[in-house]
């Protein structure tokens, strides 16, 4: 029988219903306040846990808490980041106030897979970031909250396109055939969409970095796991409201330096009689608004939080931005003497995006600065009405009036996302809980593009017959999740305990998309973008393009078990095992077995070093599997061939590989955690092997009938180090300064590959096809930019390249790039040697300042704007010339060389927030008010001449002449290419208001 999630759900609910019997245990409510022992200030978000159970809560903004405990509860444990935890016997007390001391041993509880653990018991590399440490400002994508905050986690959204997706990576690439991003788990829902979580609703994010922590999640955790916990209500509280509002203005941070109209004409440019600053014409001051309102509280055993979030972000490019509404409901309750717990989360997002046209920035850079915006200002008779009134440089390749692009065309999308999940737990005994989780998510995306009959850009305005183009893309993605697991906890003596979790997980993903493209509209008098029946393409063969993709039921099924053991409160053991199967592989290779093991020792408990509060050493090893790539990986795929006589047949498109097996990642992680007074430090060293990585590679077309096939193709290793340092510089009653530094470095080596060496990343048209800028080699690190070295300008205006091997002849042509005697060398590496984030939190009285600096060192970027448009090419005199400080004025032909590879080290003040808190009398209607000002991208120190020195970790290839960039297939082996479709970086100032009432 086919597994049907509904029947599963029904089954689970049936079981649940049977379980809902009358267990009545007396219970009571304990309230109190948690404060800092030194300053007396309340601690917000401190954890309170009933010892030996999973019952707990956190303190609210006043530092108070309220917790329902059963009568058999004996002890409460209070903990807070950076403070030593305390256990207090409950006895008959109903009010327990606690003061925690700072700088002591950490005893925080951290969410890990299928449960939580005390931080000290964790034996793997796990980093937890609370809301108070998130990046501020009008965040467009929740991953940006973490940018620079977690050692080893890379989050880059180059240029800051409000609709751009950040590239997220943990510890470098984890496979070569796809850009695999960390698994996101939101409130226990595996694979939930981060886009369906508003940044304001996030309480905490925990990042599981190494294999031993992630192994419990199996293949989907192979690239690391990001666990998101959203805010919940507090028990024993009436309704509390919180409002968060932000207003922000953004401006272009910088642009690509080009010639002024005067310089351009002096350099031989074709003078068209006007003066136009094209980049200025297509950019603007972007205004953004964020409003969030939440209501939370708790009554009896039930807590809830309901929130609504509205975001309206305008990008700095005209007609780009989005408007988003998100709603979330979190509900928790306990019943039957707290033996049954029910958690329900639901969230909904509707986002209307104006994607805009990044091409307007590209053509804004290279368009003739003497060209007029409007055709009526052309220096010669111009048929303006044919082009919507705009001027166009007809007859040029890859040249479009940027203002016309953004004014005439539309590129919009609507994404709707619904996620809901429910977890039901039942304490069979105080030591044994069984739990079931059901979750579903559905995302629909509807993208619409319309290019009117008067648009040269994609609208084909020059055509006498077939003008105008409309494109429709609709996509539905959904998943279903069912999990059941049991957890057994037992204390073995006073200082030792054992916790065992085992369960079953069923995940099913579905995808379906439909694409339709057609044109030839009569004119623009009606909204023909929506009236496809007006398309004259319907009368003509061969113009309409339609495509539909439907995935099979992609399933992951797993059985897992984990044991955590603590001995003597100082030795911690974690072990897990997961047996997982996937529909993507052939019958014989479907199932994989993935083990993990970790050991941690609180060494200082035995050494008892003076002044040292904690010294923990831990080692973790884990194996996870991964299956990057599409469905049908292992199967033969064919495409349809139509004959003109109505006959249809198929031809082979991808050959089958029944032997394809799991790609495996084995990772060894060694960590040291050290706390001494005000200093704390964590160092992680890791070594990761990705073997049998899956890649669609070129195979012998003669043998397989086609030259593409998925194979297990090689071995990738990464060694890295991550250091996190924290220091309380000042800790006085009215002044606190904490500073923290996260540093990470790694090096990924391609140990085995299908070929000894290979070039990638074609520079593209015009004129730079067959020019590959990146090389990968077996046994060498990835990310190497490869090319000849520029020496000087030759007599004919072409570049003179260096004779690197001194053999008297220069072999600098691309056809010989990989020959041993070629004069090519590594010109840089696209991956940084060192990435760092430096946080500073300073508070004095009601004021606080949060300054976050971020930087990366050792990476280079190919500045492709320069590579194409900086040489003064005589036949390009109707395009503007890029004109940076690095320009070689005599150069009249373009050829890729070291001249266009730039070191892109940078150090920036990423985020500066100044805020003031206003206090109110107890009992006043307003509980708290905070006003803040945030500046993003305030300064950047870099020598890079492009718009944004942030590393470019993936490459999407080249596009030209109005062509479309395919963002769905990133090349992860070609970092370091700054393409011409990048959005320009912006600087943003935000005024924020937080009101609790």
């Amino acid at each position, binding site marked *: *029988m*086919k597994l049907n999630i509904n*029947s599963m759900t029904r089954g689970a609910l049936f*079981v649940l219903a*049977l379980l809902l019997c009358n267990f009545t245990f007396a219970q009571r409510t304990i309230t109190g306040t948690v404060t800092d022992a030194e300053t007396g200030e309340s601690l917000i978000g401190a954890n309170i846990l009933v010892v030996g159970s999973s019952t707990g809560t956190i303190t609210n903004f006043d530092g108070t808490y309220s917790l329902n405990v059963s009568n058999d509860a004996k002890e409460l444990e209070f903990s807070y980041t950076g403070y030593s935890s305390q256990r207090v016997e409950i006895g008959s007390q109903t009010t327990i106030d606690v003061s925690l001391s700072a700088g002591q041993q950490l005893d925080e509880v951290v969410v890990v897979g299928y449960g939580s653990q005390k931080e000290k018991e964790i034996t793997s590399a796990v980093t937890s970031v609370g809301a108070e440490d998130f990046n501020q400002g009008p965040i467009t994508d929740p991953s940006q909250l973490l940018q620079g905050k977690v050692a080893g986690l890379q989050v880059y959204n180059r240029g800051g396109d409000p609709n751009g997706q950040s590239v997220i990576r943990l510890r470098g690439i984890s496979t070569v055939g796809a850009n695999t991003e960390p698994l996101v788990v939101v409130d226990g829902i595996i694979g939930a969409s981060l886009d369906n979580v508003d940044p304001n609703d996030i309480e905490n994010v925990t990042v599981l970095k190494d294999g031993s922590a992630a192994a419990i999640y199996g293949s989907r955790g192979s690239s690391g796991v990001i666990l998101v916990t959203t805010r919940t209500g507090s028990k024993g509280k009436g309704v509390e409201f919180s409002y968060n509002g932000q207003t922000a203005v953004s401006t272009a941070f910088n642009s690509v330096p080009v010639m002024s109209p005067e310089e351009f004409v002096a350099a031989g440019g074709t003078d068209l009689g006007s003066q136009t600053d094209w980049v200025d014409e297509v950019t603007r001051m972007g205004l953004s608004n964020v409003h969030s309102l939440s209501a939370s509280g708790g009554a009896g055993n039930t807590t809830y939080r309901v929130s609504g979030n509205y975001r309206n972000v305008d990008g700095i490019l005209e007609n780009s931005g989005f408007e988003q509404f998100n709603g979330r409901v979190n509900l928790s309750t306990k019943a039957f003497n707290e033996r049954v717990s029910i958690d329900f989360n639901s969230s909904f997002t509707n986002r209307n995006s104006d994607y805009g046209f990044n091409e307007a920035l590209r053509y804004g850079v290279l368009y003739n600065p003497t060209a007029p915006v409007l055709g009526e200002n052309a220096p010669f008779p111009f048929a303006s009405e044919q082009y919507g009134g705009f001027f166009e440089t*007809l*007859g040029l390749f890859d040249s479009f009036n940027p203002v016309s692009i953004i004014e005439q065309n539309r590129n919009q999308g609507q994404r709707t996302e619904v996620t809901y999940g429910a977890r039901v737990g039942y304490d069979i005994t105080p030591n044994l809980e069984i739990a079931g989780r059901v979750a579903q998510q559905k995302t629909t995306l509807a993208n619409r593009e319309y290019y009117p009959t008067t648009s040269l850009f994609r609208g084909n305005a020059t*055509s006498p017959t077939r003008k105008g183009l409309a494109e429709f893309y609709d996509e539905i993605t959904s998943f279903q999740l069912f999990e059941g697991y049991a957890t057994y906890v037992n204390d073995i003596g006073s200082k030792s305990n054992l916790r065992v979790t085992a369960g079953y997980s*069923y995940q099913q993903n579905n995808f379906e998309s439909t694409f339709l493209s057609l044109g030839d509209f009569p004119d623009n008098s009606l909204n023909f973008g929506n009236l496809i029946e007006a398309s004259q393409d319907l009368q*003509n063969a*061969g113009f309409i393009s339609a495509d539909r*993709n*439907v*995935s099979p039921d992609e399933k992951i*099924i797993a059985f897992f078990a984990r044991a955590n053991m603590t001995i003597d409160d100082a030795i911690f053991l974690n072990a897990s095992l997961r047996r997982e199967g996937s529909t993507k592989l052939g019958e014989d290779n479907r199932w994989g077995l993935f083990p993990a093991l970790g050991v941690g020792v609180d060494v200082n408990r035995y050494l008892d070093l003076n002044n040292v509060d904690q010294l923990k050493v831990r080692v973790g090893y884990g194996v996870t599997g991964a299956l990057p790539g599409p*469905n*049908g990986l292992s*199967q*033969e*795929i*064919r*495409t349809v*061939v*139509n*004959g003109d*006589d109505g*006959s*249809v*047949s*198929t*031809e*082979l498109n991808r050959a089958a590989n029944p032997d394809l097996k799991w790609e495996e990642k084995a990772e060894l992680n060694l960590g040291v955690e050290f706390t001494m007074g005000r200093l704390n430090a964590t160092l992680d060293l890791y070594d990761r092997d990705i073997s049998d990585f899956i890649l669609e*590679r070129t195979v*012998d*077309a*003669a*043998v*397989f*009938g086609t*030259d593409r096939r998925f194979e297990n193709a090689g071995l990738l290793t990464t060694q890295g180090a991550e250091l996190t340092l924290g220091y309380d510089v000042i800790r006085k009653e009215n002044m606190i300064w904490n500073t923290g530094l996260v540093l990470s470095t790694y090096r990924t080596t391609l140990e085995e590959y*299908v070929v*000894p060496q290979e*070039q990638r990343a074609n520079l593209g048209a015009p*004129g*730079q*096809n*067959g*020019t590959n800028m990146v090389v990968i080699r077996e046994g060498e690190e990835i990310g190497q930019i490869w090319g000849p070295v520029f020496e000087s300008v030759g007599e004919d*205006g072409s570049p003179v390249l260096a004779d690197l091997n001194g053999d008297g002849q220069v072999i600098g042509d691309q*056809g*010989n790039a990989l020959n041993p005697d070629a004069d090519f060398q590594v010109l840089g590496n696209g991956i940084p040697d060192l990435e760092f984030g430096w946080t500073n939190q300073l508070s004095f009285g009601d004021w606080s300042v949060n300054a976050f600096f971020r930087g990366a060192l050792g990476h280079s970027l190919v500045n492709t704007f320069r590579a194409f448009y900086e*040489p003064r090419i*005589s*036949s390009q005199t*109707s*395009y503007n010339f890029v004109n940076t400080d690095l320009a070689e004025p005599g150069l009249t*032909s*373009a*050829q890729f060389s070291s001249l266009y590879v730039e070191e892109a080290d940078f150090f920036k003040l990423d985020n500066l927030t100044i805020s003031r808190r206003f206090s109110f009398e107890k009992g006043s209607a307003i509980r708290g008010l905070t006003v803040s000002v945030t500046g993003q991208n305030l300064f950047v120190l870099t020598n890079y001449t492009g718009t944004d020195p942030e590393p470019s970790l993936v490459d999407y290839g080249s596009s030209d*002449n109005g062509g479309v960039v395919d963002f769905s297939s990133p090349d992860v082996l070609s970092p370091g290419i700054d393409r011409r479709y990048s959005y320009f970086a912006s600087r943003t100032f935000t005024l924020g208001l937080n009101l609790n009432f």
Partner: protein
Amino acid sequence: MKELFKYSLILCLGLSMSACTDLEEDLIGDITDEIVVKGINVGGPGGGEGPLTALYAELRNAGTANHGGYYSIQEITTDEMFIGAKGGDWFDGGDLIRLHQHTYTANHPFVNGAWVQTYNAIATANDNLGSGNLKDSEVAQARAVRAYFYWRLLDSYGRVKLVTELDQDPPQANRQDVFTFVETELLEALGIDEVSASMDLSNSLLGDGGSAYTMNRYGALGLLAKLYLNAEVYTGTAMYDKAEIAASYIIDSGKYVLCGEGCSVPNLGKRPRVDADPDELEGYAAVFAANNEGNPEHIFSVRYDEATGAGMNFANMNLHYSSQFTWNFQEQPWNGYATVEEFYNSYDDEDLRKEANFIVGPQLDFSGSALLDYAADDDDIQLNYTPEINELAPNSQREAGARPAKFSYKQFGRAEMDNDFPIVRLGEVYLVRAEAASRLAGNWTVAEADVNVLRARAGASEYNGTMTADEFLAERGREMFQETARRTDMIRFGKYNSEWWEKPTSEPFVNIFPIPQEQINAGGGLTQNPGY
């Protein structure tokens, strides 16, 4: 209570156990099996390709008339055509210069492209042949078409794997074996043991004429004639006698006639307001026109169609960006391929083939007004194609070079053109016979009779005892321009390694292309050709 729980858990697990671990992948959005749907109007314009639809489509897909593969490596390696590097435009990492100057390497993307295109076509043939769905006549067609693709490999790469079934991995064959394979396959399709004066094709499973889109006896025989003409290059053994017999058989059959006077089609490229544009294309020009389907000279041709038969992109490849407005093209051309000046000049002015094959001079738009190039290299803003070319690189002028136009352009044309591309046509068969006979006789004037037939059609003066080997090659070039014959011809005449414009002498090893490095890397045990 506990009992109840236990039983309900067992119940749940029992109900769903099989589903709990069911991982069967049932692809519903992809095709995983071979599917053949017969045409609803078999015998229509497509000639009823039926189960061989995909195979005949491979003739279009295999780079026959577009950029980056077979066409490119056959044309711009010769003295016919070049692509100049125009500052930044069309430099493309030096790939195009390397083809022109014969410094191509195993990493050349076009050399790889041509290989992959051809083997993909062969795989489709093998797939069809292995399906068991074909009638005997279709098997014969598929084998002959596959032999044509192997002839391409034989001519270009020499030593290749002779794969005849999917998942078969034979060792790399030498050039002689590939030659023998191509010859045998064609002979078997023709139902004969050898080409001889007394051969009887009546047992052939191939058709006796009919649509040029379907491989018939004369198509297969034409391919054999071309194979034998080059046998000495391929194997060291001359077989001109067989070439002559095969060519004569086709000519003497009377099934095909040269398209000469009175053989005309409406000129689809005509601009209503430009009187110089003829209303009709006649003779040689009609053979290659956009509406050339069914031309009496076509024996075996590739069916291109703007809507249903994509793969010919000459307008984009050859014309300047602004020329879009001469023909009202749907897309902007790329300004790439142009004619080597000396080659253009080798035509007499009265030779009608000169006008048919090239576009030169100041250009007018659709309405007859001057066509402008805002980025003109010279002071004249009107687009003017000059036969003279300043240089190959780095700053070849944008308007330099006569533009190939044999496969003529039509008004409102799309990026995908409509002109059918002949692989075997009667005009070439005359040239094969002329050359084979001359070589057998050891006297080039023997060729004059056949050559003069073609000259007469073109309105050019006839040869009268003046024919030489060089003259024959030049004349063959004039007739066969843009039909991917030049490289093979120059090699057969020993001229491929000579010097010409912007091209130094090259070593003989370049007469066979390198085995693409990517294919060697694919791990099938291929070894490189000598010299690379």
